[in-house]
């Protein structure tokens, strides 16, 4: 790891100021992505601005058809939250599938959504539920937020403060985890709302995406049989030593069916 300067800020305003005056500074929340990256010398920030303990970024609240989760809320806290389990049980379930207990005790939803790893779990829920990413500057709809592998709508120095999830009628997440890394080889989040059904896919493509043809086929009353012959372009999928494009495309369909069967 290169030498660095660590700063634990006391407020969101202080964090924003640090970022504005130090263009090479980087935010840190749980460090579960950042510390391994630094150890590999893949990044050399001038400062680490730790926002992980800011109380204004923590917490889970439900009201008027929405569930709001503070950016620095740990995966463990979402997985075990009675409020989250009641409002969107599939979201709490998803949080409990991330990594392992030690990772869930430190990793945060804001860090995961900011990082936008193409195989991460939270992006599937944020896009599948049509959530809103709230930053210290604006509100960004999930459909505009995710822009492909490790790329988001966030600007330099912009800080995610919370994610607001609309509570769906029913939702479910099915993940085929890579047996060694635990990341998704294919993860499908299905949400049934009063307007129709949304299907978001992670792990299989170069970034989280909506399977729109499946959404149309499922309509307002999703049934697994409806997506049997629905088009999914294998050419858009990732191919590596773990799986071919065709295999990944098939996994997506199987995971989507499993999710539909588990809607709750």
């Amino acid at each position: 790891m290169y030498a660095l300067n660590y700063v634990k800020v006391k407020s969101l305003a202080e964090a924003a100021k640090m970022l504005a005056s130090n263009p090479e500074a980087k935010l840190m929340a749980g460090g579960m992505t950042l510390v391994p990256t630094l150890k590999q010398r893949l990044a050399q920030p001038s400062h680490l601005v730790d926002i992980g303990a800011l109380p204004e970024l923590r917490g889970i609240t439900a009201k008027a058809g929405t569930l709001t989760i503070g950016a620095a809320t740990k995966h463990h806290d979402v997985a075990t939250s009675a409020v989250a389990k009641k409002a969107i049980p599939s979201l709490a379930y998803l949080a409990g599938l991330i990594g392992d207990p030690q990772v869930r005790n430190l990793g945060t939803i804001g860090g995961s959504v900011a990082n936008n790893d193409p195989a991460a779990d939270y992006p599937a829920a944020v896009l599948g539920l049509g959530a809103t990413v709230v930053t210290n500057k604006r509100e960004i709809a999930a459909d505009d937020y995710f822009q492909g592998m490790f790329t988001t709508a966030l600007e330099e120095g912009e800080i995610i403060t919370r994610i607001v999830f609309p509570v769906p009628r029913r939702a479910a997440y099915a993940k085929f985890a890579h047996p060694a890394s635990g990341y998704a080889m294919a993860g499908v989040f299905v949400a049934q709302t009063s307007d129709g059904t949304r299907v978001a896919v992670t792990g299989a493509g170069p970034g989280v995406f909506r399977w729109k043809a499946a959404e149309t086929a499922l309509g307002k009353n999703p049934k697994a049989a409806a997506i049997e012959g629905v088009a999914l372009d294998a050419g858009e999928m990732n191919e590596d030593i773990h799986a071919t494009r065709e295999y990944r495309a098939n996994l997506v369909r199987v995971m989507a069916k499993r999710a539909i069967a588990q809607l709750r």
Partner: protein
Amino acid sequence: MAKVEIKVNGVKQSRNVEDRTLLANFLRDELGLTGTHIGCDTSQCGCCTVHVNGRAVKSCSVLAVQVNGADVLTIEGLAKGSKLHPVQQAFSECHGLQCGFCTPGMIMATVGMLKDTPNPSEEEIIHGLEGNLCRCTGYINIVKAVKQSAKMLRGKKPAKAAKKAAPKKKAKAAKKAKKSKKAKKAAKK
């Protein structure tokens, strides 16, 4: 450089270290607490698991400055004098180790898991130790040791001692009911 003050196994420790110092190195190199092992150094194996403010974390992926002011518990802090912690005792009795390299992390992860899930099923044990790798045992005896630890820890809780009689009776009654069901089934056959 940063002044880092951490309470480790109940004792306040203060050192001046570089900001990039990992908690695992702080414990091993600065404090000489080499029970915390570094197996992979890439947050995969869990050998370096310690508790920070009561929660299990991988100390190779945490900066020492990040946990300034925290309470840290390492494998060295579990036993009371020469009396092993129930989880340590269970790992020893069930042969939950061979070379022992993964063991400190396994034990710290188990102590953490049993706090959240005092009576885990086999599936919950496997899910709960997902962050820990063992290259020797094949995990069978580790799972056994976790089950035994859970039993020992549950049995030990003094507050429940008074209530113990009642659930036992219930268990007996349930057994009886099962037996009579079996008997009925047998009779039907």
